[in-house]
């Protein structure tokens, strides 16, 4: 997809033209930003870290909704319910099968995707308002199911599902090194079109991955985690052990890092997942799939006449949206160490998602970032303002504390819809354009 670029901004290769990160300074900026965000737990306040983590998984859910609503044009009022499914699935897998999160989150996301397909089925026959109602039904039925007393031994009933046990991360240094090396070999082989490197690297990667996860799971089954002391990832003792392993190669011992005291870990996991999901959504939207989805959004009858299989592509959009919602829900469940209707996941959150998307910019890849950050900032302001005012007017403190969040969100949404219906992403593009044209025209 050709993007209009100003004169003097040349690409030297096809790869550079297609790259998401096209220039070296962008790469450095990105790496710096990731490092800054991942290390937030070391320099930021607890609330800031919490909000950053929340923002990361909300953006993942928003990206899913953006594929469904922004690119395919199908209104969904059920994204929060799908997050609930993802959280439950990942928690159950972690508890009952002792799966580590790098297995439980993808599996939970697949399960959520299938649930999303189920509720996407009416999308063949209905659209617009009708489809919004079908997803609204999902938003009511799924939380209702989780609250049923019959499943309470599994799902925790109305109280929610607490005690998700993935509080530790096992690191097998040698295996991890092999894993990373095999991944790099496979990627370079794919990039330079050398099949022997590509497939060989992939095979080693998969085999090592299976061994690694089998070992991890067995360790989880045998070791009593609660009794282990918390360990810092960057502690000097481990560095020494790491060097010993590298030099002698003998003791392939595992580091068990207790993560209850290490918010960095959850933040890092969320941010890395966010990076992956961003690459995924950008590539979806600029590929054949994305073009088909945009065609459906702009005119579904015309798209069908052009050979886009409506049902198939709508279901794919539903699957992607529910998949990313599942990832987000799983991340949220693991970092809040609990999942259930007590924690939210209500219709209000689904509305919040749609609002964030519109405020950020529907159908843009920047939209989820801007909208999510903006709305979280507004909500945080409301959460700060309420108690402050409650101090001044103590007789009405209960009202003041709870009412500003919906009012501010509603006002922001209404004002954006009237004055900037294309969202912050559009405003950002305008800003960029005017910066480029400076000092000549605006």
């Amino acid at each position, binding site marked *: 997809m050709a993007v209009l670029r100003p004169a003097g901004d040349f690409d030297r290769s096809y790869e550079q033209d297609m790259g998401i990160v096209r220039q070296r300074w962008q790469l450095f900026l990105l790496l710096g930003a990731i490092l800054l965000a991942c290390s937030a737990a070391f320099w930021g306040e607890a609330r800031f870290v919490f909000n950053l983590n929340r923002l990361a998984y909300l953006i993942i859910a928003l990206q899913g909704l953006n594929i469904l609503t922004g690119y395919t044009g199908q209104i969904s009022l059920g994204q929060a319910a799908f997050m609930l499914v993802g959280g439950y699935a990942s928690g159950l897998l972690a508890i009952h099968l002792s799966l580590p999160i790098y297995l439980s989150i993808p599996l939970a996301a697949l399960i959520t995707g299938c649930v999303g397909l189920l509720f996407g089925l*009416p999308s063949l026959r209905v659209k617009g308002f009708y489809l919004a109602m079908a997803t609204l039904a999902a938003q009511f039925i799924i939380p209702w199911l989780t609250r049923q007393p019959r499943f309470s031994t599994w799902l925790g009933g109305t109280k929610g599902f607490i005690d998700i046990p993935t509080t530790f991360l096992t690191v097998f240094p040698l295996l991890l090194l092999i894993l990373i090396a095999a991944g790099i070999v496979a990627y370079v082989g794919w990039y330079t079109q050398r099949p022997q490197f590509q497939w060989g690297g992939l095979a080693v990667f998969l085999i090592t991955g299976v061994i690694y996860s089998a070992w991890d799971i067995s360790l989880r089954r045998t070791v009593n985690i609660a009794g282990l002391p918390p360990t810092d990832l960057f502690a000097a003792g481990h560095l020494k052990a790491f060097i010993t392993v590298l030099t002698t190669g003998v003791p392939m011992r595992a580091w068990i890092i207790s993560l209850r005291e290490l918010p960095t870990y959850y933040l890092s996991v969320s941010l890395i997942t966010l990076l992956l999901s961003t690459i995924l959504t950008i590539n979806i939207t600029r590929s054949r799939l994305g073009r088909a989805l945009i065609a459906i959004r702009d005119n579904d009858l015309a798209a069908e006449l052009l050979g886009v299989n409506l049902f198939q592509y709508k279901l794919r959009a539903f699957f992607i949206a529910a998949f990313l919602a599942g990832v987000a829900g799983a991340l949220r469940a693991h970092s809040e160490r609990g999942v259930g209707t007590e924690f939210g996941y209500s219709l209000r959150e689904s509305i919040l998602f749609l609002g964030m998307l519109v405020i950020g910019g*529907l159908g843009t890849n920047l939209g989820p970032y801007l909208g999510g950050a903006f709305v979280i900032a507004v909500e945080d302001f409301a959460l700060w303002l309420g108690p402050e005012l409650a101090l001044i007017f103590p007789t009405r403190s*209960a009202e003041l504390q*709870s*009412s500003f969040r919906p*009012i501010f969100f*509603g006002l922001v949404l*209404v004002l954006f*819809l009237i004055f900037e219906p294309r969202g912050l992403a559009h405003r950002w593009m305008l800003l960029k354009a005017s910066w480029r044209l400076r000092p000549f025209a605006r």
Partner: protein
Amino acid sequence: MNWILVPQQLVNGLMYGGTLALIALGIVLIYKSSEVFNFAYGHMLMLGAFLTWWFAGGARTGNEPISLPLGWAIVAAVLVSVLLGFLIERLALRPMAGQPLLAIVLMTLGLSQIFEGSVNLLFGVTPKGNFPSPFSPSDAYTIPVPPVDGESIVFLDRIQIGHTRLATFVVAVVAAAIFMLFFQYTKIGLAMRATSENHELARSLGIKVPRIFALSWAIAGITATLGGVLLATLSGVSVNLAAVALVAFPAILLGGLESFPGAIIGGLLVGLATEIVKAATVVEVRNSADIAPYVLLLIFLLLRPEGIFGRHRIERI
């Protein structure tokens, strides 16, 4: 199925469905005249109930000088709601003319959030149990049911109809009837129907379309307040009324989006479904009164998406 309860639940469902039908009528009215799905309707309804409660002196903190009898409180609340309807139409929805469906739906959702917060701020977060109802909840008419001979199914031998339920049903039916007569036989009703058929054609005939929009929002304010008062006499005033009123959306989809009789039938169906499941023997089904309308909705969307009275839309590129 717990057959012994079925006649009682049927009657309850009918009574509840009457109120839902009135609520659904208000939503259909706005949709027909201006093609806006008013997701804020539940919150308008809640606001109407809270206003009535406030005008009737329910707050009783000593600061409010206003303590009207129920009838005048309703009138005052209706006036405020009508004003609010005008304001919403003028300030929020008119700038949105010609925007896609999603933007309009989100506009009403945003308005609903503003209402929710404002009601919290003005009237407090706790549910109010002291809604001024003219009936005490224990009063009921008892209707004997003749026993059915030679059947294995046994019904309870009497049906109790609470005065409150009966009164809400009667008010809802009368209001719905007035509403439909107004729509069918007055000149303004005719103008509104013409607008709903085709905006431009109506405009060329000299109908002031913006005024019709404003009028339909005002009427929706009236029906919202009435529905809110009816629901509040059944269950008390709280923020949850908005969620209760959300059930009217399945009702209008069941009936067919653009049909007034459909809205009434859909409301009754949803009311019946909500109450009938309470007579089931399986505990999960008995608990499912909250989601029964949505399950019904999903079934309808799969089998007959255009609803009972809806027209199948023919689309062209």
